[in-house]
């Protein structure tokens, strides 16, 4: 089966700084794949390269067997690569519903439609309302995104991403700043996603990672360290060394570790 994402020797250099250096691994179709690593490991850079927000210095990015390395960001969205942002990035003066509609109307091919009012496009509105319900925001749909709480913005962020009908969904630290209850709700939404959606997430909350992920990739200082099942990764000596710098790492994967 073709992997949902395949990275071949992907690098990103900023002058002499090597944010990513020759990273290669695959993400199986339909998997829940986590990318972890200490700060500065290159996780966010990796996401930017996969989403196409930044051109790679070297290497190829292959999505569903199609080489997308040279595609602009908005074209990759059409190829099914959709991401959320580490810091909520929304349309703050638009309502929550409009935020979702912006993504949904693009996917529906209606974004150039200039004359027929949005409010008369019931299938589109229905879809957007369904998505808001899925992330528990149905009561806040008429609020401006700028007046939502931090947790609500993360939820909305997810709804916007889902409205793009992703085949490969990139979640950049989705649980950052969320309460345990909100994190639980987030895990639930991700688990309920259909199997044909591949999810790749960067996350510091290792509880959430080992709860959700079936595969884990560890990055360290811009290099690929290991990819494996959660238990393989837990057992890897290399990972323990990378995280703590040296030998003893008994508390690395304890429950509740940040």
């Amino acid at each position, binding site marked *: 089966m073709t992997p949902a994402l395949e990275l071949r020797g992907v690098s990103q250099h900023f002058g002499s700084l090597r944010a990513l250096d020759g990273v290669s691994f695959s993400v199986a179709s339909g998997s829940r794949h986590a990318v972890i690593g200490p700060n500065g490991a290159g996780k966010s850079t990796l996401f930017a390269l996969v989403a196409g927000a930044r051109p790679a210095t070297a290497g190829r990015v292959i999505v569903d067997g199609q080489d997308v390395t040279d595609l602009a960001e908005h074209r990759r969205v059409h190829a099914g690569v959709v991401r959320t942002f580490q810091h909520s990035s929304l349309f703050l003066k638009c309502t929550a519903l409009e935020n979702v509609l912006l993504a949904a109307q693009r996917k529906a091919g209606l974004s150039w439609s200039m004359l027929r009012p949005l409010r008369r*496009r019931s299938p589109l*509105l229905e879809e957007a309302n369904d998505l808001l319900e899925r992330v528990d925001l149905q009561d806040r749909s008429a609020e401006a995104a700028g007046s939502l709480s931090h947790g609500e913005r993360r939820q909305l962020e997810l709804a916007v991403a889902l409205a793009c009908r992703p085949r490969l969904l990139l979640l950049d630290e989705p649980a950052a700043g969320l309460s345990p209850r909100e994190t639980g709700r987030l895990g639930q939404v991700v688990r309920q996603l259909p199997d044909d959606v591949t999810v790749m997430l960067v996350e510091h909350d290792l509880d959430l990672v080992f709860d959700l992920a079936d595969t884990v990739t560890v990055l360290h200082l811009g290099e690929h360290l290991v990819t494996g099942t959660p238990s393989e990764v837990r057992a890897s000596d290399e990972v323990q060394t990378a995280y703590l710098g040296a030998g003893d790492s008994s508390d690395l994967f304890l429950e509740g570790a940040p």
Partner: protein
Amino acid sequence: MRRLAGVGLLVLLLALPWMINPYAISTVTRILVIGLLAISVNLLTGVTGLPTLGQSAYFGIGAYTGAIVSTTLTDVGPVQMLIAAVAATVAAAVTGPVAMRARGVSFLMITLAIGEIAYVAARRLDITHGTDGYAGIPPVVPLPGLPALRLEGLVYYYVLGGFLLVFALVMLLLRSPFGLALRGLRDNESRLRAVGYPTSRFGVAIYCIAGGIAGVAGSLWTSAQQFVAPGDMGFSVAALALLAVVIGGLGSMWGSVVGAGLVVLTQDYIGGYLAGYGTLLLGILFVLVVYLLPRGIAGLSLPKKVGA
């Protein structure tokens, strides 16, 4: 309630020629034209977040195109309007991609330069009759077969017709998916790109549409004045249109028209009492608006949103 107010306003606009004198009617005609220009500025500045001081260029192109068509091709107004709109849209399609290389203040600077260049060109080219201005424009014929309009009140109806048509189309545009995309572009361009929009293309598209609207306004100006001079597309025209937008409130189309009304009335009436102090007065108006009306007249009633 909203609909009722709209109908009332429409009736008032239609009854105006019977209520006020011809000089006052010609002022209202000018308010409608400058109002359309302000709407075109507002589509860019208020709705899409691209501050512009260059719409006077497309206004001027529309005005001169209207003048040329009326003297060489036909005196039928809608034909002039259409050709003027096309000419201004084409000019915007050529210049827009350059302006869209930049955002924010740089965008403002580039559009200002475009406006100034068009103004200087109008003074130098033969086709515009240079600094003398373009005279000898025949009275406008509203539809083929109808007589030419010579009375101020009738010209007003012609301009009102063009105004209402464009205003209605703009209202539809703002409520459409495209209109929402424009607001998304203003709020967060990089996010809009990340949900799959080619954002620069949307920017150029609205730049062309706004240019076309400014062109229609220019053609109406020509029909109403029967004379076009480079001064009609000068820097102060662009500045006045931007002022009207800020007075009316960014993003509010009716606010822009009210703002245009205030600006034109200030210029015409108060400027008339204090002859020769028009520029001074406008300068003071600019300063007052910035300090006293930070969100414009429409600041308290923001545009209605989908799902609200």
